[in-house]
Each structure stands twice: as C-alpha cells, then as structure tokens.
C-alpha cells in the first residue's frame, strides 16, 4: 500500500548510522534493539482488527503462527485452533496439507491418537453395529479417491455489513485436496440401516468443557438418510497422498463433496444412524441459513423473527483472483498473467470471466486441468493495461447449472454463504 511512502524518520545516533548502512544491522551490532522500535513498529504492521467496515484485505489480519505439521498460517484463534491459509497457496488446484486451513469448535482436540485403541464405530439404528481399525479400513475396502473443496461455512465472514460476530475469516478458510478412503455407503450397507431411520450422525474426537450434551461439550453433525450426497461421501485416511495432519482430522475425516466443511467431521470416530431427527445445538441452532435466495436476509427481519432457517448445505459458486495480488505495481504496456481458482458445490465450473471496467465488459479465461466437479478449477488469462492508473479487476464464475456470481452482497446473522464477485485493485505505473 505504501510502496512510495518515504522511510520513517529515526533519531539521534541511529539517524546517522542508519542513513549510512541500514538501521537494523547497525543497531544489532550495538545491542540497541530495545532502545529502538517500539514507537515505530506499529505503523508498519497491518491493523490488528478490521471493522466496523468490511475487511479490505484478501486474508484476515491475524499474526502468523506455526502450529504442528503446518507452515506459518494466519491465526484467528489458538484455543481451539483456527488458522487461515494465505492467498498465495491458492495458485495451484490442490492446497498443500501443511498450508490447509484449520477450524475447530471446542478446545479438546487430540495431540495424539493411538491406533492400537482407535476404531471407527458404526452404531445406532443398524442391524449390526461394527468397528474398524485403520488397518481394516485400508485393507478390507477398495480405496476411492476424489478431489473436493473443503470450505468453512464462514469463509469471508469479515466482508459482511453490518459485521457479525464469529471467526473473522478473510477468503482463506478453504482448500482443495485429493481425498482417498472408504465409501461411507459401503460401511452403512455392511452395518445395515434399519427401516424408519431418519439421519446419519457424525462425531469426532473433539470435546469441550461445557455441560454434557450441550454444544459446548460435543460437536455433532447429521445428514438426512435420503440425501444423495451420502452416496458420494468418503471416509478419508489420505489427503493429497499423505496421512491427514492432526489438525485436519487424523486418522480419518468425513468428506462430503460439494458441501460446506461443517459436515466434514474431523477425527471421525462415531457414525450413528438415528431414528429421530438430530436436535443438538450444531444442527438446530448453529450453521443454519435463511431459507431465501443466496441465504440473504436483513438485521430488521431477523429482529422481527421473520426468518425461517434451514441447515447450511452446498457451496455456492465462487472464483478468486490469486495473482496479481496488488503487492506490486504493473508497468503500463506489460502483458501479465491473471490466475486464480473457481469452484461450485452445485456442478462443474464452466466459465470464469474477468472485467477491468467495473463489469461493463467481461473477458473469457482458459480453464486449467479438470479434476472433477467438486475440485478447485484453476483459470488463467492475459491482461495488458495500456495506460497508468488504478484498475479494479473483477472475477466471476458460472457453473454447469448456470449458477453465476452476483455483485450483490450477502448478509445473514451467521455470516455464511458469501459469494459476491471478488475484486482486486491493481496500480499500473509508467514504464518510461
């Protein structure tokens, strides 16, 4: 942002030394670190929070933190762990495991799992309750692989106006991986779902300090027995060809292709067939969206109790410009590559378009390799800004069901389903 801003002033001795050969090195030699800094550093850090206006950054503004099995990621919260993936990791169709975002609800998350004792249990309203070790899951069933986007329901929550409480994600609460494991359907078939069953409930190893049975002690999610997605779900023990990072759900995680991540139970340990509808907090109160187009409503309608809600479901179509990211100026006349990703939970992405004139005209882009309907699809285009100035690059995707991105904002009290057209300001300078 302040690439042309002159260097901040320094004082006394440092002013003289610093001017010659660089303040940091010199001050280090002289052991002056403590005398320095304090009053200068904050001016250079990104703000520590955003709001009440929308977060203007692509990512959230938290500090970087290194968690086990991870590269430095953006910290939202540390207990339980919530980490956001920085923008540049989305240059490729598959998000590296070590950079994959993390979102837990309750603080009791495993640091260790002993596979001697751990078993995946299938129980409840079934003819034959079953339990499988990881070895049995790997050996008794034919492995299947599937590329699928995992996106947090609250991804981009920090864009909403008015702002809503919750994890203040930028755009990085998403990732795409090649998931390998056992088809959920096979496990359910062997156990035998009894007639009259309504839902399948999933529970992992996370626990909280709240009173037993409340949302603060246990995290439970369920899918309807009749939901065709149950036939596509995978109990995954491999993520991009590697064991899952502990923070992403080792030893196995439920993959629900096309659906928001709230259903993708981490450290999945209990699969429970229910004869009654799941009334727990995380189904009945949490993760619900207005039963309206794009999940839109207003604070006024919420206050008046007018809003009927349903459990959150599939991922609306989205697309992102990953590069250029605005961190450098582009010399006028230079042809640069525009690149990014797109996805939809409703069907294959068919088209990604870019506009540099506030949406008056849209230019097509080339789509990258196709890894299936539920994967990130990379896209690429060329762009030659002819004259210096400030440009706003907008990107929109359309899927095979003809769902396309709108330029209208989304608002609901949970801060879910944001999929407005994304924009990136780019500054073009003189080339001579």
């Amino acid at each position, binding site marked *: 942002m302040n690439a042309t801003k002159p*260097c*901040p002033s320094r004082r006394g001795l440092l002013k003289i030394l*610093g001017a010659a*050969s*660089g*303040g*940091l*090195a010199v*001050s280090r030699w002289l052991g002056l*670190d403590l005398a320095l*800094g304090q009053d*200068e*550093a904050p001016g*250079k*850090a990104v703000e*520590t*929070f*955003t*709001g*009440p206006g929308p*977060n203007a950054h692509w990512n959230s503004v938290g*500090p*970087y*933190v*290194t*968690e*086990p*099995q991870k590269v*430095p990621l953006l*910290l*939202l*919260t*540390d*207990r*339980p*762990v919530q980490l956001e993936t920085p923008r540049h990791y989305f240059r490729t169709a598959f998000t590296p495991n070590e950079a994959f975002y993390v979102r837990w609800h*309750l*603080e009791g998350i495993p*640091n*260790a*799992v*002993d*596979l*001697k004792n751990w078993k995946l249990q299938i129980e409840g309203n079934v003819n034959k309750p079953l339990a499988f070790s990881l070895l049995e899951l790997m050996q008794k069933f034919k492995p299947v692989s599937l590329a699928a986007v995992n996106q947090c329901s609250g991804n981009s929550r*920090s864009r909403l106006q008015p*702002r809503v*409480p919750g*994890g*203040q994600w930028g755009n990085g609460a998403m990732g795409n991986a090649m998931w390998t494991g056992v088809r959920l359907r096979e496990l359910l078939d062997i156990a035998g779902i009894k007639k009259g069953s309504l839902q399948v409930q999933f529970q992992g190893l996370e626990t*909280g*300090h*709240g*009173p037993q049975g409340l*949302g*603060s002690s246990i995290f439970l999610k369920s899918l309807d027995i009749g939901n065709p997605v149950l036939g596509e779900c995978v109990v995954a023990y491999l993520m991009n060809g590697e*064991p899952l990072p*502990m*923070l992403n759900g080792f030893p196995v995680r439920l993959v629900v292709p096309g659906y928001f991540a709230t259903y993708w139970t981490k450290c999945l340990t209990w699969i429970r067939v229910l004869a009654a509808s799941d009334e727990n*907090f995380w189904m009945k*109160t949490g993760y619900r969206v207005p039963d309206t187009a794009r999940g839109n409503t207003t604070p006024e309608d919420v206050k008046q109790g007018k809003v009927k809600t349903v459990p959150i479901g599939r991922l609306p179509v989205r697309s992102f410009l990953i590069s250029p990211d605005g961190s450098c100026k582009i010399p006028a006349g230079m042809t640069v590559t525009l690149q990014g990703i797109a996805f939809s939970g409703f069907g294959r992405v068919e088209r990604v378009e870019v506009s540099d004139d506030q949406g008056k005209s849209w230019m097509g882009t080339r789509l990258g390799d196709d890894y299936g309907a539920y994967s990130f699809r990379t896209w690429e285009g060329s762009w030659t800004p002819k004259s210096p100035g400030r440009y706003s690059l907008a990107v929109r995707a359309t899927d095979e069901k003809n769902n396309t991105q709108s330029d209208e904002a989304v608002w609901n009290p949970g801060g879910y389903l944001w999929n407005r057209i994304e924009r990136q300001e780019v500054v073009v300078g003189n080339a001579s």
Partner: protein
Amino acid sequence: MKNRVQSILLVVCGVAMAGLLSADLKKGYYSPAELGSLWQAKPVEHLPDSNYQVSEYPVPPVDLTRGDGLQDVQIYCNTCHSPRYITMQPPLPAATWEAEVNKMNKTFGAAIPEEDAQKIIRYLQAHYTPETRKQ
C-alpha cells in the same frame, strides 16, 4: 589529446548520470521492527509404534485492554476458549456483546454468576465497540 578530453568528459558524464540514477533508487533500507519474525518449532521425535503424536498447540499471549472486569474475562472466558476470541472480533455494538455473553451462559452453560457476567459485559462494552475500540 582530443581522445583524452573525450574520455574525461565521458567519465564525468557517467558519474553525473550515476548520481541521477541513485537519486531514484532507494536501496538497502532496513527497519528495526521485529515484524514477521518467528522461531522454527523443534521437530517431533516419533517412535515406530501405534501412537501418532504432535507437539502441543502454541498459545501466543493475547493483548487484552486493561480495565475493570479484565480479571473476570480471564477467569470465565478462558475456561472454554482463548480470549483471542474477543480480540479477533470486529468492533461490535454494545447489545451484541451483551447477547454474546448471555449466549455463553444460556446456550453453552458457562455458569458465570450473573454479577460477574454483567462485569464482563461492561468490560467488553467499554473497550470493544465501534465507539470504544482502539487499534
């Protein structure tokens, strides 16, 4: 002789040009700020057994504003989650903070005594609303 004059002129021009260029090039500016620096974590030593372990999850210090009620925040909020949940939020209206604290008690069973819950609400309203929050 003529050649010598030319070459001297060239050198002089060259120096002048270099001066012009260096006026435009800002180079080697370093800042004393500690921003962006961090230490690498020590790799975990694994054993070839059935236990799969990672090291502990780090809890960096949270910079909560000092003021009345901070102690209650540290005692009660910390039970279930890091107070970073507070600093991560955008500035929220006073009524929203009240609703959040009440949700912890009523929905999540936090069992914060009413008097202390009120102190927490007043603390959050005093420091974390659009009117009161500071960078």
